[in-house]
């Protein structure tokens, strides 16, 4: 009886481990831009408040930091879960490569510590620290966000471009070059790509809330400022991202040809490869459907050689060392989504920047605001799509050319249970997060009884020697 029960519960853990890791990462990555970029956006508002004596900017900065306290808390715990999952889901990977792969995380821990400390000081320091010292306690948050992102992306890049270790004949890591692990070949471009992504997603996300408010008629200075500060950050980041992305794609073409073949859906090595929009691979591995632009994929890969550029096909590696046809479809679709939405967001950014440069004002069109209000969600979809490209595109490897995902996974047959539990818990936490943020925004709008005396005021008990507020 109990044996029968156990055999029913004993399910191959690999697909469940992949699902759980994918789901928890997909959840966490939405909070990353808020943790990394919102601090900077808040400091811009804070700076403006202090430098130009702008009361609205001060209220914005203060409220943003309160939202940030909530999103950072959820980001911190969902990040902690990822730390557990490296062991719980991928113990054989960590057991074998932890001595190399772990190093960037040790550095990340440092930055995360700094971020948590100064975020606490900044968020809780509004009332009783003096204005400029308080502003400066926010700066380490921004630096730590950048450093932390670089470290985590370095670890991910290492999975794509493993370097800095020596294996003995038994496959055990016997020597490590920490520098080469962290600064592996894929690290610089991947890091810049993710950092810029964090800033543009964070900017679009925050701005979209105020775009929505403006559409509903709240067009006062406060709401305009709440829109302009984050949207400007995003609009400046977006064109940069297109250039970085283009550079990274060409880097993948040169260094990770199999991933590139999946991205461009190229079954056989060829020149004059068309750029296929959408479409899929059929059971024979041939491209079906979609809209083909003749020669364009080749041209993009190396404009110098134009359409005669040869792109390596999926067939150049054995079937068990490349993504399956289904995975290729996913990678290709995710790629199309990322590039398509990225282009749309770039046009939106250029519209905004152009109007600003030539007319010195916001675009007046309601259409602009409508798209801007959707840009938050769209940029998150773009971010997720980009992450799918790099992760699914590496399959079946967890460490490219060294270890397959199935060999890194846990043997625990109960992973499906934890996956379901994670699904449930994260659904509750995610919905609660959105409801709580909305509740806070309503409370702020009602006149914010919770804010008490406002920032930078002397303490009630002891009169401050400095005059309150902004000098």
């Amino acid at each position: 009886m109990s044996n029968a029960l156990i055999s029913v519960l004993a399910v191959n853990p690999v697909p469940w481990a992949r699902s759980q890791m994918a789901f928890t990462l997909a959840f966490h990555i939405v909070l990353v831009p808020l943790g990394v970029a919102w601090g900077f956006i808040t400091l811009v508002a804070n700076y403006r408040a202090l430098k130009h004596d702008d009361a609205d900017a001060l209220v914005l900065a203060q409220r943003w930091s309160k939202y940030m306290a909530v999103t950072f808390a959820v980001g911190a715990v969902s990040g902690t879960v990822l730390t557990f999952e490296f062991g719980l889901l991928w113990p054989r990977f960590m057991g074998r490569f932890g001595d190399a792969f772990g190093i960037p995380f040790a550095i990340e821990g440092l930055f995360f510590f700094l971020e948590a400390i100064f975020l606490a000081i900044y968020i809780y320091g509004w009332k009783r620290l003096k204005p400029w010292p308080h502003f400066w306690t926010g700066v380490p948050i921004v630096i730590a966000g950048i450093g932390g992102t670089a470290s985590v992306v370095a670890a991910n890049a290492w999975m794509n471009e493993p370097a800095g270790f020596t294996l003995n004949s038994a496959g055990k890591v016997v020597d490590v070059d920490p520098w080469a692990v962290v600064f592996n070949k894929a690290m610089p471009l991947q890091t810049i790509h993710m950092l810029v992504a964090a800033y543009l997603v964070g900017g679009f996300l925050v701005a979209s809330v105020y775009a929505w408010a403006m559409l509903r008629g709240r067009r006062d200075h406060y709401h305009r400022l709440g829109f302009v500060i984050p949207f400007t950050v995003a609009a400046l980041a977006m064109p940069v991202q297109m250039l970085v992305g283009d550079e990274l794609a060409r880097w993948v073409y040169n260094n990770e040809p199999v991933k590139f073949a999946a991205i461009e859906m190229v079954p056989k090595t060829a020149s004059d490869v068309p750029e296929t929009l959408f479409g899929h691979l059929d059971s024979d591995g041939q491209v079906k459907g979609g809209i083909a632009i003749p020669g364009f994929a080749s041209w993009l890969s190396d404009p110098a050689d134009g359409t005669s550029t040869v792109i390596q096909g999926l067939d150049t590696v054995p079937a068990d060392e490349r993504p399956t046809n289904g995975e290729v479809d996913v990678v290709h679709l995710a790629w199309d989504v990322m590039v398509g939405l990225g282009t749309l967001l770039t046009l939106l950014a250029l519209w905004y920047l152009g109007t600003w440069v030539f007319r010195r004002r916001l675009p007046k069109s309601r259409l602009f605001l409508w798209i801007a209000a959707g840009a938050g969600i769209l940029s998150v979809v773009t971010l997720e799509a980009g992450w799918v490209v790099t992760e699914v595109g590496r399959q079946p490897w967890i460490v490219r050319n060294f270890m397959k995902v199935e060999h890194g996974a846990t043997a625990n047959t109960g992973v499906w249970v934890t996956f379901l539990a994670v699904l449930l818990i994260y659904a509750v936490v995610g919905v609660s997060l959105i409801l709580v943020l909305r509740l806070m925004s309503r409370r702020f709008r009602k006149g914010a009884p919770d804010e008490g005396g406002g920032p930078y005021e002397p303490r009630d008990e002891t009169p401050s020697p400095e005059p309150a507020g902004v000098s």
Partner: protein
Amino acid sequence: MSDVVAVILMVGITAYALFGGADFGAGFWDLTAGGARRGEAPRRVIGHSIGPVWEANHVWLIFCLVVLWTGFSEAFASITLTLFVPLSLAAFGIVLRGASFAFRKEVTRTSSQRNFGAAFAASSVLVPYCMGAVAGAIASGRVPPNGTAGDAWDSWVNPTSVLGGVLAVTVCAYLAAVYMVWDARRMGEHEMVEYFRRRAVGTAVVAGIIALIGIFVLHDDARYVFDGLMSRALPLVILSGICGIGSLVLLLGRNQRGARLLAIGAVATVVMGWGVAQYPYILPTDLELSAAASPDPTLWSIVVVFVIAAVVILPSLGLLYYLDQRDLLETVTEPGVTSV
């Protein structure tokens, strides 16, 4: 070299026990504070006490995990494979705990506060229990070497694990109560000073009793660690006992500041005693630290990171606690407390 990294790991575990532990304990007192009306005052002290510092306190856990998997990856693999269940439970608890605590501060309806509060408080007990059970599993030699899995259930449902779990919960509650006596005094909540002082004394006594029972449990179930505690680690054990009794005496004599310091000493020496007792093993008595350790360059990078942390993080942490203790950090007022 592996010994240096082991010491770093112990520093991390001790810091997590002292800072994160007090945080969990605060959740324990939240759980036992009673209904919305009766529990209002203690919960106010709890929220005030851990509000600004809880995230920084829990980074120590990440620190420990990272040092473990980078420095002793094979042992890490064994531990996570064997202790899948308690570690998964702990991870879930951490999510629920942190998220609910952040949410509770921002919601205004009593029922929402109660729901988030319950999730926060219940997971504050679950997580340290699981961590203590994991420590018990390692100490009693139930985690096999070579990145292989031990028994999925017996490994953490056994006398030493139960001892570890119960002791962890009690010690967390004790630490938190001692800290909050101090915090309540700073807040001018005199009734709460008494409230937490009584609880600090109670948990100190209970923790002492559990520790005494624990000696017998370890004697039967975790012989290597028992022998270590009675030999190499004996000075630490004695010191812990002296600190514990001393803090109890000071609590009874209403010397809060001294009691707090001695409580820290009592807990820190217990944790370090465990480490010294199972030396030179990371998984007694199968895997020695030196055999489990990563190549030297990896260990060196851990040391370098740790030194940088000591130079950069410690002053920052000091600044945070200084500002917090000087009341320069405004804990967000609990909406339910102020409005209506």
